[in-house]
Protein backbone atom coordinates (compact mmCIF):
# COMPACT_ATOMS: atom_id res chain seq x y z
CA UNK A 1 0.00 0.00 0.00
CA UNK A 2 1.12 3.51 -0.70
CA UNK A 3 1.38 6.34 1.76
CA UNK A 4 2.46 9.96 1.75
CA UNK A 5 4.05 11.87 4.61
CA UNK A 6 4.15 15.61 4.83
CA UNK A 7 6.17 16.29 7.94
CA UNK A 8 5.43 19.99 8.21
CA UNK A 9 1.84 20.87 9.01
CA UNK A 10 2.60 24.59 8.85
CA UNK A 11 5.39 26.60 7.24
CA UNK A 12 5.54 30.33 8.02
CA UNK A 13 7.78 32.39 5.77
CA UNK A 14 8.35 36.02 4.86
CA UNK A 15 7.60 37.33 1.41
CA UNK A 16 10.43 36.93 -1.12
CA UNK A 17 12.10 34.23 0.98
CA UNK A 18 12.70 30.75 -0.45
CA UNK A 19 10.58 27.86 0.73
CA UNK A 20 10.70 24.08 0.69
CA UNK A 21 7.71 21.89 1.52
CA UNK A 22 8.69 18.33 2.25
CA UNK A 23 7.02 15.19 0.98
CA UNK A 24 8.05 11.58 1.41
CA UNK A 25 6.22 8.59 0.03
CA UNK A 26 6.28 4.85 0.35
CA UNK A 27 5.37 2.43 -2.39
CA UNK A 28 6.49 -0.96 -3.58
CA UNK A 29 5.94 -0.10 -7.24
CA UNK A 30 6.71 2.75 -9.59
CA UNK A 31 4.73 5.87 -8.80
CA UNK A 32 3.36 9.05 -10.19
CA UNK A 33 3.77 12.06 -7.88
CA UNK A 34 1.76 15.25 -7.67
CA UNK A 35 1.53 18.50 -5.78
CA UNK A 36 -1.86 20.17 -5.50
CA UNK A 37 -2.63 23.58 -4.03
CA UNK A 38 -5.84 24.57 -2.27
CA UNK A 39 -6.50 28.27 -1.84
CA UNK A 40 -8.96 29.26 0.91
CA UNK A 41 -12.49 28.07 0.15
CA UNK A 42 -11.50 26.68 -3.21
CA UNK A 43 -10.92 23.29 -4.80
CA UNK A 44 -7.69 21.48 -5.57
CA UNK A 45 -5.50 22.79 -8.36
CA UNK A 46 -2.59 20.87 -9.83
CA UNK A 47 0.77 22.59 -9.33
CA UNK A 48 2.99 19.99 -10.97
CA UNK A 49 3.43 16.30 -11.57
CA UNK A 50 6.16 13.73 -12.02
CA UNK A 51 5.37 10.82 -14.31
CA UNK A 52 8.79 9.82 -15.66
CA UNK A 53 11.91 11.31 -17.21
CA UNK A 54 13.67 14.32 -15.73
CA UNK A 55 13.60 14.28 -11.95
CA UNK A 56 13.27 18.07 -11.74
CA UNK A 57 9.74 19.11 -12.53
CA UNK A 58 8.62 22.68 -13.07
CA UNK A 59 5.07 23.71 -12.36
CA UNK A 60 2.85 26.76 -12.30
CA UNK A 61 3.42 29.91 -10.27
CA UNK A 62 7.21 29.41 -10.15
CA UNK A 63 7.11 26.18 -8.16
CA UNK A 64 9.32 23.18 -8.86
CA UNK A 65 9.86 19.78 -7.29
CA UNK A 66 12.55 17.15 -7.45
CA UNK A 67 11.89 13.44 -7.47
CA UNK A 68 14.49 11.55 -5.46
CA UNK A 69 13.96 7.82 -5.78
CA UNK A 70 16.65 6.78 -3.32
CA UNK A 71 15.19 9.02 -0.62
CA UNK A 72 11.60 8.45 -1.74
CA UNK A 73 11.03 12.18 -1.65
CA UNK A 74 9.31 14.77 -3.80
CA UNK A 75 9.96 18.11 -2.09
CA UNK A 76 8.35 21.27 -3.43
CA UNK A 77 10.39 24.44 -3.72
CA UNK A 78 10.02 28.06 -4.70
CA UNK A 79 12.98 30.48 -4.67
CA UNK A 80 10.91 33.55 -3.76
CA UNK A 81 7.36 33.38 -2.38
CA UNK A 82 4.56 35.92 -2.64
CA UNK A 83 1.71 36.74 -0.31
CA UNK A 84 -0.58 35.11 -2.85
CA UNK A 85 1.15 31.76 -2.32
CA UNK A 86 -0.54 31.47 1.07
CA UNK A 87 -2.52 28.23 0.76
CA UNK A 88 -2.64 24.56 1.70
CA UNK A 89 -0.33 22.32 -0.31
CA UNK A 90 -0.97 18.62 -0.73
CA UNK A 91 1.46 16.02 -1.97
CA UNK A 92 -0.14 12.97 -3.59
CA UNK A 93 0.94 9.65 -5.06
CA UNK A 94 -0.59 7.12 -7.36
CA UNK A 95 0.93 4.03 -8.86
CA UNK A 96 0.80 2.74 -12.38
CA UNK A 97 -1.51 -0.11 -11.42
CA UNK A 98 -4.33 1.87 -9.88
CA UNK A 99 -6.20 5.01 -10.72
CA UNK A 100 -6.60 6.66 -7.34
CA UNK A 101 -4.55 9.33 -5.60
CA UNK A 102 -3.38 9.04 -2.03
CA UNK A 103 -2.92 12.41 -0.38
CA UNK A 104 -0.67 13.58 2.40
CA UNK A 105 -2.04 15.51 5.34
CA UNK A 106 -1.15 18.84 3.75
CA UNK A 107 1.17 21.72 4.61
CA UNK A 108 -0.20 25.16 5.26
CA UNK A 109 2.12 27.77 3.76
CA UNK A 110 1.65 31.17 5.39
CA UNK A 111 3.50 34.03 3.72
CA UNK A 112 3.96 37.18 5.77
CA UNK A 113 4.76 40.67 4.43
Amino acid at each position, binding site marked *: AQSVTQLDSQVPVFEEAPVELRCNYSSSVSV*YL*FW*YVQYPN*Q*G*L*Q*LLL*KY*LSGSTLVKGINGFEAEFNKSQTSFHLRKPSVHISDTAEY*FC*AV*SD*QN*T*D*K*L*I*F*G*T*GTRLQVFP
Partner: protein
Amino acid sequence: EPEVTQTPSHQVTQMGQEVILRCVPISNHLYFYWYRQILGQKVEFLVSFYNNEISEKSEIFDDQFSVERPDGSNFTLKIRSTKLEDSAMYFCASNRGLDGELFFGEGSRLTVL
Protein backbone atom coordinates in the same frame (compact mmCIF):
# COMPACT_ATOMS: atom_id res chain seq x y z
CA GLU B 1 -10.63 25.34 -20.53
CA PRO B 2 -12.91 22.44 -19.60
CA GLU B 3 -13.49 21.92 -15.92
CA VAL B 4 -15.28 19.69 -13.45
CA THR B 5 -18.39 21.34 -12.02
CA GLN B 6 -20.17 20.43 -8.81
CA THR B 7 -23.54 21.29 -7.33
CA PRO B 8 -24.57 22.37 -4.81
CA SER B 9 -21.66 24.37 -3.49
CA HIS B 10 -23.06 24.11 0.03
CA GLN B 11 -25.85 21.97 1.46
CA VAL B 12 -27.17 21.89 4.99
CA THR B 13 -29.24 18.88 6.00
CA GLN B 14 -30.68 17.20 9.04
CA MET B 15 -29.18 13.97 10.33
CA GLY B 16 -30.89 10.97 8.76
CA GLN B 17 -31.82 12.76 5.56
CA GLU B 18 -30.72 11.66 2.10
CA VAL B 19 -28.33 13.85 0.17
CA ILE B 20 -27.33 13.77 -3.48
CA LEU B 21 -24.24 15.61 -4.61
CA ARG B 22 -23.88 16.19 -8.32
CA CYS B 23 -20.87 16.46 -10.58
CA VAL B 24 -20.32 17.04 -14.26
CA PRO B 25 -16.89 15.64 -15.16
CA ILE B 26 -14.84 16.80 -18.12
CA SER B 27 -16.55 15.43 -21.19
CA ASN B 28 -13.88 13.15 -22.67
CA HIS B 29 -12.69 11.75 -19.36
CA LEU B 30 -13.16 8.10 -18.55
CA TYR B 31 -12.53 7.76 -14.82
CA PHE B 32 -14.52 9.46 -12.11
CA TYR B 33 -13.89 9.84 -8.40
CA TRP B 34 -15.28 11.15 -5.17
CA TYR B 35 -13.01 12.36 -2.39
CA ARG B 36 -13.88 14.03 0.87
CA GLN B 37 -12.10 16.39 3.20
CA ILE B 38 -13.27 16.77 6.77
CA LEU B 39 -12.51 20.26 8.02
CA GLY B 40 -8.82 20.62 8.79
CA GLN B 41 -7.97 17.12 7.69
CA LYS B 42 -6.50 15.49 4.63
CA VAL B 43 -8.25 14.66 1.41
CA GLU B 44 -9.51 11.06 1.54
CA PHE B 45 -10.40 8.77 -1.33
CA LEU B 46 -13.96 7.47 -1.33
CA VAL B 47 -14.61 5.74 -4.63
CA SER B 48 -13.54 5.45 -8.23
CA PHE B 49 -15.84 4.67 -11.15
CA TYR B 50 -15.04 3.42 -14.61
CA ASN B 51 -17.07 1.89 -17.39
CA ASN B 52 -20.30 2.34 -15.44
CA GLU B 53 -19.19 0.49 -12.36
CA ILE B 54 -17.22 1.03 -9.19
CA SER B 55 -13.59 0.11 -9.74
CA GLU B 56 -12.39 0.72 -6.20
CA LYS B 57 -13.81 1.99 -2.92
CA SER B 58 -12.41 2.83 0.48
CA GLU B 59 -13.50 1.67 3.92
CA ILE B 60 -15.33 4.97 4.31
CA PHE B 61 -17.60 4.13 1.38
CA ASP B 62 -20.03 1.90 3.24
CA ASP B 63 -23.59 0.88 2.41
CA GLN B 64 -24.84 4.41 3.11
CA PHE B 65 -23.00 5.67 0.05
CA SER B 66 -23.72 5.04 -3.60
CA VAL B 67 -22.61 6.50 -6.90
CA GLU B 68 -24.33 6.67 -10.22
CA ARG B 69 -23.81 7.99 -13.70
CA PRO B 70 -27.44 8.38 -14.71
CA ASP B 71 -26.72 9.87 -18.11
CA GLY B 72 -23.76 10.72 -20.30
CA SER B 73 -22.73 13.76 -18.30
CA ASN B 74 -23.63 13.60 -14.61
CA PHE B 75 -21.89 11.66 -11.86
CA THR B 76 -23.67 11.62 -8.50
CA LEU B 77 -22.83 10.68 -4.94
CA LYS B 78 -25.76 9.72 -2.73
CA ILE B 79 -25.64 9.46 1.03
CA ARG B 80 -28.74 7.56 2.07
CA SER B 81 -29.02 8.54 5.73
CA THR B 82 -26.60 11.25 6.72
CA LYS B 83 -24.70 11.25 10.00
CA LEU B 84 -23.03 14.12 11.78
CA GLU B 85 -19.63 12.75 10.81
CA ASP B 86 -20.53 13.01 7.13
CA SER B 87 -20.06 16.76 7.40
CA ALA B 88 -17.19 17.51 5.03
CA MET B 89 -16.20 18.98 1.71
CA TYR B 90 -16.82 16.48 -1.05
CA PHE B 91 -14.71 16.71 -4.18
CA CYS B 92 -15.50 15.16 -7.51
CA ALA B 93 -12.64 14.46 -9.90
CA SER B 94 -12.15 13.01 -13.35
CA ASN B 95 -9.23 11.55 -15.26
CA ARG B 96 -8.49 10.98 -18.92
CA GLY B 97 -6.95 7.63 -18.04
CA LEU B 98 -3.53 8.51 -19.42
CA ASP B 99 -1.27 9.58 -16.58
CA GLY B 100 -3.01 9.58 -13.23
CA GLU B 101 -3.66 13.33 -13.19
CA LEU B 102 -6.99 14.08 -11.58
CA PHE B 103 -8.96 17.22 -12.36
CA PHE B 104 -10.96 18.35 -9.35
CA GLY B 105 -14.14 20.32 -8.99
CA GLU B 106 -14.57 23.19 -6.53
CA GLY B 107 -16.21 20.90 -4.01
CA SER B 108 -19.59 20.61 -2.30
CA ARG B 109 -19.66 21.46 1.36
CA LEU B 110 -22.07 19.24 3.29
CA THR B 111 -23.14 20.26 6.78
CA VAL B 112 -25.17 17.72 8.75
CA LEU B 113 -27.02 19.09 11.78
